[in-house]
């Protein structure tokens, strides 16, 4: 049995497998399937300053090897999170990280301040990359100077581990990575969804209500791997990698490219048991290759 423990920015993960924001709810629904203590961590659904209804139905289109969504940060706001949802999360035997979203810098700061008070939540993941809200969201994540600004503003009030989730909808991901590290990010998560579109030729209409939406699943994996690799070479902070991970082999590829921890997103929507299967598969891979620790494969890509 290989050692699966990973430590980043002073946080201990019992294994490198975590679940991506928006693809795991608040974990509640997955308790019907397995013990959440099997996971390295859970990144919970985006939390904003106040209640958001999200976008209109239809919010989803199936696309080749992936899906397009336009959920649009539907959630009941940070007060509801702290009062109703947090009590059910704080004693789970896994790391809980809150995905923080907003439309203005003030909103990000307000949410981060509230989450900072919560015991048992060691980190937030700043979502400056959501393509599904009209104002803000992705806008912060595609211009380096505003990305630095929002990160710095949150850094000033947030005292624990600050992760920032990057958008792939940029010309240079390394430049964006450097910008948020300058702003004070401890860890980088990448990637969020790629902006995409689906059309129904029969009805001659867009498939989702917002016309464009976020593409996820195996279709984006090569882009995500490339970005993790580029960022790994460009900055010194740990990386949480994701984008189209469906199995342990995909997860290992992300770790070889430089991710210390991986997130499973869309795959949870297809196989509710996928995350524990990936934990098992990583262990088998390490044993098969006589590698003593999961840490040993981080960024271990052999480039000749």
């Amino acid at each position, binding site marked *: 049995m290989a050692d699966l423990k990973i430590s980043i920015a002073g946080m201990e993960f019992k294994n490198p497998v975590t679940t991506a924001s*928006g*693809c*795991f*709810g608040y974990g*509640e*629904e*997955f308790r*019907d*399937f397995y013990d959440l203590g099997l996971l390295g961590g859970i990144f919970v659904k985006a939390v904003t300053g106040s209640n958001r*209804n*999200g976008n*209109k*139905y*239809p*919010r*989803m289109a*199936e*696309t*080749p*090897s*992936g*899906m397009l*969504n336009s*959920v649009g940060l*539907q959630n009941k706001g940070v007060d509801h999170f702290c009062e109703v949802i947090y009590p059910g999360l704080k004693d789970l035997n896994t790391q809980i990280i809150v995905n923080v979203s907003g439309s203005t810098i003030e909103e990000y700061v307000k949410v981060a301040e509230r989450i900072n008070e919560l015991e048992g939540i060691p980190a937030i993941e700043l979502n400056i990359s959501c393509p599904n809200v009209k104002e803000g969201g992705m806008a912060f994540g595609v211009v380096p100077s505003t990305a630095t600004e929002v990160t710095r503003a949150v850094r000033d009030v947030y005292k624990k581990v600050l992760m920032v989730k990057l958008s792939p909808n940029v010309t240079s991901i390394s430049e964006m990575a450097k910008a948020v590290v300058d702003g004070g990010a401890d860890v980088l998560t990448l990637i969020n969804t790629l902006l995409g579109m689906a059309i129904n030729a029969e009805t001659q209409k867009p498939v989702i209500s917002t016309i464009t939406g976020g593409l996820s*699943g195996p279709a984006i994996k090569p882009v995500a791997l490339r970005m993790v690799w580029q960022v790994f070479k460009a900055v010194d902070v740990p990386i949480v990698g994701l984008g189209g991970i469906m199995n342990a082999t995909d997860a290992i590829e992300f770790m070889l490219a430089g991710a210390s921890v991986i997130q499973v997103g869309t795959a*949870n*929507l*297809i*196989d*509710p*048991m996928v995350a524990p299967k990936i934990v098992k598969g990583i262990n088998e891979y390490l044993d098969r290759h006589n590698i003593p620790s999961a840490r040993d494969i981080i960024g271990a890509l052999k480039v000749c």
Partner: protein
Amino acid sequence: MKKFAHDFQVVGNTRLNTRHFILELKAAVPLPEILPGQFVQVLVHNSPSTFLRRPFSIHFVDYSTNTLRLLVQVKGEGTRHMGMLAPGDTLNLVYPLGNSFSVPATHKVLLVGGGAGVAPLMFMGDYLNKKNIRPDFLVGFRSADEVSQIDEYSKFGKVYLSTDDGSMGEKGFVTQHSVFKQSPLPYDRIYCCGPDAMMHAVSKLAAEKGVACEVSLENFMACGYGVCLCCITQTDKGNERVCIEGPVFDAARLKWQSNG
């Protein structure tokens, strides 16, 4: 309620007509309690264009043989592949999902279904019979060649029939059937499943006649177990998830805007 992801064995695939078939699936472990109105999410293998699972109502449950049945209408790639399954093949299901039809505190019950929307009504009929309730069925089909299983429904209650082209039963949509011309309606509760337009029309009629009505929605779904928020419908409580708070809703609570 505990949910499972299990491989089922295909033990039967019966063609009803050119567009519909029934899959009979056997579980390797004893089936958990399943309620009428609940659904399964099917993983379609070997089809490059079906990435997500496909949701289907549970058409019938037989605990004695440990099997359940799905009534499937061929729509696109996923259902076409399912239609080619043969005994011995396996199919992975996530189940049982969603809420269920309520148990009525009355014997005067009407079950209304159209097209593949009749699927959950067979199971509901059986379930009600076991509670000593014999419901009436009102089922609508496109034409006579799609009318099927009338004898099966008849085991559980009286069956009224309509076809769009009048080739069998009364002509027209279910809402035009003489059952709905009665005043007052001889029912205390209506359960309905079918195309959105039909459910909306039935729920309006029910409201006009002062009869409580539950509908089973079929919104597009990604997960089917409540985590992606893709399947929402607008209700008097805001956006609710059709796969968790539904698929069965009290029709009076729905806004109907989001479902076309």
